[in-house]
Structure formats: structure tokens, C-alpha cells
């Protein structure tokens, strides 16, 4: 091979190698650009969505804070009114009767209420009776004895309301009717039907 041809061959190989490198660069860089454009488009959509989220959630903090403040004021009012009118013990008992276990938490504005032993108000009396009983002698339920003592008695409120029910165990009678005895040894046996457990009677076949 002459030196000229050798130089030409080496130059051609060099050009081929550089050309291959350039082709690879173009192919992959263009592909990368396409992918980056997709990413840009996706981020545009994302930014728009995030912008909407920010705009929609902007007033939430202030509104929720205002709602909580108003509800706090309402809770303070109702707690204060309940304790003022019913007394601490009955108030705790009433709340515990409506929401079992709430007495342990106590009232928010009365930390000492958590130490109060809740009377079993809700287990003995209905809510309506309790409400009426706490209204005092002007309540319709107390119309029968308008000259009697005020029903809402802080110290013995539960006992006073108990008297509103028919006589059974309220006044602590010495003897009460015994519960009926049931079973095979019971003194009173009810007549047993013969057809129970027996084979069912065949119905007449239709002709």
C-alpha cells in the first residue's frame, strides 16, 4: 500500500468514527430532549394543579380557626351553664350518663371536675325525666305537688327524681315480690303441647 493510500484509509476511518459518534450524539440527545419536553409539559400541569390547591386551601386555616373559636365559645357557655345550674356533681353525672366515660376527662374549663365521682344519673333515669326534674317545682311533672319541695336538689337530686317513678324499690321496702321460678323443678308447670316435636301430620292427597 502506498503511503498516500494508507493516509487516505486512516483518514477515512477517522471520519467514520467521528461520524458515528456524531450520529450517536444526535440520536440520544434528541431523544433526551423529547423526554425533557414531556417532563416540562407534565410539570406545567402539576404546577397548575398545585396552584389550584394553594388557592383553594388558602382560606381554610382562617375559617377553621374561626369555627373552632366559635365552637370553643359555645362549649364554654354550655359547660358554664350546666355547672352553674346543676352543680358540679350532677353536671358530671349527667354528662357521664349521656357519654359513658366522659366524667374521667372532666369539663374543659373546670379542671377539678375530673376528680368528681360521677353519680349514676343516666343509668337510673331517662333524659327527659332528668330534664323535667331539674326544672324545679314549675315543671309539669311536679304539677301534682306544687307545694312540695323543689325537685332539683343539688345534694340529693337523684333521690328526688327517683320519687317520680312508681313505687317499687325507691323507698326501700323490706319485701319485694320474688322472681318467678322457671325450669323443670318450678312449682308452676305449664301444659306442654303434644304436637311439638311430633311428626307432622300428613295432609290428604289431592285426587
Amino acid at each position: 500500500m502506498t503511503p498516500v493510500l494508507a493516509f487516505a484509509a486512516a483518514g477515512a476511518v477517522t471520519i467514520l468514527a467521528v461520524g458515528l459518534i456524531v450520529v450517536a450524539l444526535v440520536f440520544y440527545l434528541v431523544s433526551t430532549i423529547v423526554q425533557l419536553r414531556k417532563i416540562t409539559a407534565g410539570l406545567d400541569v402539576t404546577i397548575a394543579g398545585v396552584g389550584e390547591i394553594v388557592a383553594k386551601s388558602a382560606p381554610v386555616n382562617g375559617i377553621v380557626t374561626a369555627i373552632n373559636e366559635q365552637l370553643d365559645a359555645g362549649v364554654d357557655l354550655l359547660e358554664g351553664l350546666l355547672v352553674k345550674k346543676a352543680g358540679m356533681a350532677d353536671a358530671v353525672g349527667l354528662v357521664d350518663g349521656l357519654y359513658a366515660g366522659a366524667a374521667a376527662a372532666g369539663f374543659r374549663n373546670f379542671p377539678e371536675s375530673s376528680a368528681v365521682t360521677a353519680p349514676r344519673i343516666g343509668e337510673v333515669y331517662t333524659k327527659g325525666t332528668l330534664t323535667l326534674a331539674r326544672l324545679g317545682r314549675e315543671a309539669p311533672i311536679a304539677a301534682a305537688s306544687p307545694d312540695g319541695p323543689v325537685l332539683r336538689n343539688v345534694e340529693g337530686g337523684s333521690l328526688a327524681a327517683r320519687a317520680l317513678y312508681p313505687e317499687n324499690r325507691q323507698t326501700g321496702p323490706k319485701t319485694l315480690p320474688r322472681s318467678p321460678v322457671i325450669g323443670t323443678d318450678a312449682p308452676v308447670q305449664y301444659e306442654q303441647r303434644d304436637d311439638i316435636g311430633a311428626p307432622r301430620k300428613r295432609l290428604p292427597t289431592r285426587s
Partner: protein
Amino acid sequence: MILWWIGDIVLLAVVLPVVVYLLRAVLAAAKSIVPSVQEIATVAAAGSKDLDAAALLVTTQDQVARTVAGVANYGGSLDVILDDAT
């Protein structure tokens, strides 16, 4: 002359594979980002739609204010009607 051939061999055997390898890695990384971005865009759009009801909080606030005001009036009346415990 020999150095030129050695340079050609290096160009074809080393430089070209390295360039292709690096560019393929960059392309693969770019492709892997696209689905994630699309998922994030979908989630952002869904999150924005979920917050459509946030505007109703204004109505809720107004209702709560009215309710608390009613409770306050009712409590005030009860305070007058009922005797205090002590």
C-alpha cells in the same frame, strides 16, 4: 502513521462505546422521570378537585356562628328560668 491507526482504534473501540453508554444512561433517566411527573400531575389535579368543597367552609362558618348564637340565646334564657345550683 501507526499512531493515527491507534487513534482510530481508540476512537472506535473506546470513545464511541463510552459516549453511547453515557447518552443511553441520560436518556433512560429522562424516560424514568416522565411517568412520575405524569402521576404527580394526576394527583395534583385530583387533590385540587377534592378541595372544591373547601369553599363551602364559608357557609359552614356562617352556620356555626348562627348556631352558637342560638345556643347562647337559649342558654341565656335557661339562665334566667332555672335556679342556680348554689
